[in-house]
């Protein structure tokens, strides 16, 4: 080894093991009992609380906070998990600053919201630490449902269906469950193998069979699933990545940010994970920020995010932008990639500066780069799907697709933001609709 941040090229071991474990530690360390009580005390128990409306899964936030403040975090966890079975992961990864906490009346009044996400984590961790699964399966209905994709949407759907007494088989192309919880979320948001532990806990409901290494489009088809099961739910996320479409896009050192993050999430030893000295990330969303920050934490010397529009249009929240800045990531705005230069491997990337209406100003920017990450959006990646609406599977509010007996939700389906919590809400709601359709039950 013996590498440092200054070593040129794409190499491993730029940081010591200690520096890596510090850098990748829990972004928001959990609240202890005292901190949780103090934080819970700040909640006003608002009527028809704005936070509840802002939460895509409609968690009764004032109620669960009151349950924490009266010394029953386990009851609080039940309140949360009854609406959002991945409430533990959501508490860690939700951009609360643009969801529940953004509309907290104390954010509006004082610029300091009640720490809803942290309190949610306190409650769900308390229950999960006890190994308690708080729900019971209803008597078997004899109905079977196939769920394709073991990401947040598929898992939420499978759990709710199992709870209602249906027998569920979950198919996933990968070898592990969790979807982007396992392969995509930034490492410092989900530490200590939480994604796998949460899935294990979720499966305690029973009635869910997991099948890995089964790819829809190759090993599975809609027709076959439809004939074998009473209903089908598709939660396959967005497997593909948009191309840059510029000269040199195929040079070595240019790759998809999501692949880099997946490698990082699966790496047993981060000292062995290579990263460039001069890293450039193209994009402006959460993926761009996560890739940039994690590259920096791995020991890259210069990390730059290049976003094609102005700061006000950047999809990554203010909090995410500040996080990037605090780790030493530079963000360049109004820069559209023009060409990747280099001899086989990338050496430089060139941008056009553009005005607000995206017309080139004539000014250009060249950044040294030995690694370039594309984070310009993901796309649907499968054949034989129901009818699309633009880039995604067309669904109704209840998640019904154009094909009878087939539902879809999460990132692969139209409507809603591409967020973990939204995927959970859509999976759950589709499960309710499937349940109603299969049994005639009214929720």
């Amino acid at each position, binding site marked *: 080894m013996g590498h440092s941040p200054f070593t040129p090229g794409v190499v491993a071991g730029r940081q010591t093991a200690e520096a890596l474990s510090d850098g990748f530690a829990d972004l928001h360390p959990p609240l202890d009992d*005292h901190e949780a009580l103090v934080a819970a005390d700040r909640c006003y*128990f608002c*009527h028809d609380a704005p936070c509840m409306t802002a939460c895509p899964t409609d968690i009764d936030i004032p*109620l669960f906070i009151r*349950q924490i403040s*009266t*010394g*029953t975090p386990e*009851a609080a966890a039940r309140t949360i998990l009854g609406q959002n079975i991945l409430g533990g992961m959501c508490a860690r990864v939700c951009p609360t600053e643009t969801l529940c906490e953004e509309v907290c009346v104390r954010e509006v009044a004082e610029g300091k919201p009640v720490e809803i996400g942290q309190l949610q984590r306190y409650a769900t961790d308390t229950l999960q630490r006890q190994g308690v699964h708080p729900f019971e399966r209803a008597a078997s209905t004899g109905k079977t449902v196939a769920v394709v994709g073991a990401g947040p949407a598929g898992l939420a759907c499978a759990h709710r269906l199992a709870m209602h007494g249906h027998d569920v088989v979950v198919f996933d192309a990968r070898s592990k469950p969790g979807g982007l919880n396992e392969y995509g979320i930034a490492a410092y948001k989900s530490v200590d193998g939480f994604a796998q532990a949460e899935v294990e806990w979720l499966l305690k409901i029973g009635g869910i069979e997991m099948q890995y290494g089964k790819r829809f489009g190759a090993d599975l088809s809609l027709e076959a699933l439809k004939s074998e099961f009473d209903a089908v739910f598709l939660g396959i996320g967005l497997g593909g990545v948009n191309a840059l479409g510029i000269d040199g896009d195929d040079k070595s050192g240019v790759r998809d940010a999501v692949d880099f993050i997946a490698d990082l999430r699966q790496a047993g030893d981060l000292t062995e994970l290579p990263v460039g000295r001069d890293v450039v990330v193209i994009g402006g969303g959460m993926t761009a920020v996560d890739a940039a920050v994690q590259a920096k934490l791995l020991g890259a010397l210069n990390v730059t995010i290049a976003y094609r529009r102005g700061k006000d249009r950047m999809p990554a929240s203010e909090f995410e932008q500040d996080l990037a800045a605090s780790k030493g990531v530079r963000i360049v705005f109004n820069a559209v990639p023009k060409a990747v230069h280099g001899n086989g491997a990338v050496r430089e990337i060139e941008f056009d500066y553009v005005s607000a209406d995206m017309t080139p100003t004539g000014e250009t920017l060249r950044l040294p780069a030995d690694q370039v990450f594309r984070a310009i959006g993901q796309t649907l990646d499968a054949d034989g799907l129901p009818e699309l609406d633009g880039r995604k599977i067309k669904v109704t509010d209840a998640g019904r697709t154009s094909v009878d007996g087939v539902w879809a939700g999460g990132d692969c389906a139209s409507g809603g933001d591409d967020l973990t919590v939204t995927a959970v809400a859509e999976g759950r709601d589709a499960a309710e609709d499937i349940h109603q359709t299969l049994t005639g039950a009214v929720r």
Partner: protein
Amino acid sequence: MADLTSDFVGIKSPNPFWLASAPPTDKEYNVRRAFEAGWGGVVWKTLGAEGPPVVNVNGPRYGAIWGADRRLLGLNNIELITDRPLETNLEEMARVKADYPDRALIASIMVPCEEAAWKAILPRVAETGADGIELNFGCPHGMSERGMGAAVGQVPEYIEMVTRWCKQYYDKPVIVKLTPNITDIRKPAEAARNGGADAVSLINTINSITSVNLDTMSPEPSIDGKGSHGGYCGPAVKPIAMSMVSEIARNPATHGLPISGIGGITTWRDAAEFITLGCGNVQVCTAAMTYGFKIVEEMISGLSQWMDEKGHESIADFCGAAVPNVTDWQYLNLNYIAKAEINQDDCIKCGRCYAACEDTSHQAISMSEDRTFEVIDEECVACNLCVNVCPVEGCITMVPMEPGTTDPRTNRPVEPNYANWTSHPNNPAAKAAE
């Protein structure tokens, strides 16, 4: 799962949480929404006699005391009994009871202290299908000036007399609601029992003036520059209510008389505490007025979780469990010796324990240069003040000393046996220990 169903003097409800007679139970609209929210029962806002209803003030009727963050701790009111016609209330009660047969619906009544008045109203209440009646002998303002409410509740003979009329003219349970504005709560409770009451409920509100406006020199709430004492309720009155409840539960003359606990109940924990002191169920007013009906969900989930944790299957399992432990000061064990202990990991170094002990107690906490606070066992009398002023729950605890060890404050061994004041050598009236 714990069974929260409640059977209070034969009145069944799905949980022991009732709304007390007050604005939350003032009309059909409220009560229907309360039942939908999950409340087990309601005591309807107090009914008056036939004829023109009372009138309320048209200005502010509440005053309040707040804690940090403007958390409401005490509420005071000058509201009277229902200001709607008797007929309207009775019709609504009948309709609601018919639609919610599994919930408890109790009629609260306050009519003049004359047999004819009670004889007239009781059959009409019975017709509504209400599960029982509560006699409001507690309202401390307005009604008492007219010889009703607390004016009756402060004279045990009247209580007994009216209760007897009610038992004579009404055949469902009669609950007597007591006023705390009296020196010895045992007397009215005994009177109620002697009159044949099925239960007592307490407390009603406490005479109070919450604040004075220093510009206008008027007490608040101010009605055109004047104020009147009101009735105090909310979290602040809970300790007073629990003491009164415990006295009735302990008193041999009233021991076993069912009690409906009221006064400051805000969380499941408050409710559980009242029940351990002998209450068969509880009633809530201010907490619902502060936070809305939804709090009952937390009360239900909290009580049932706690019961599960403790292995209590029903309310009866722990009803009165703390009563045998309520005793007189003279019987407390003077050989029990404890010392405060500060957990240095939890300490946030605010120094409040130090200020409290150094300035107002026993100078038993030391403070170092680096703000480490430690208990000096040689000085500590285990008064608990440091525990009470510490902002971190559980950071300072009281640790009992083992018998046989030496108390460094007195240099005397900790005695293993129980010994109280009645036999203490310093007590001039001491009897020799048996």
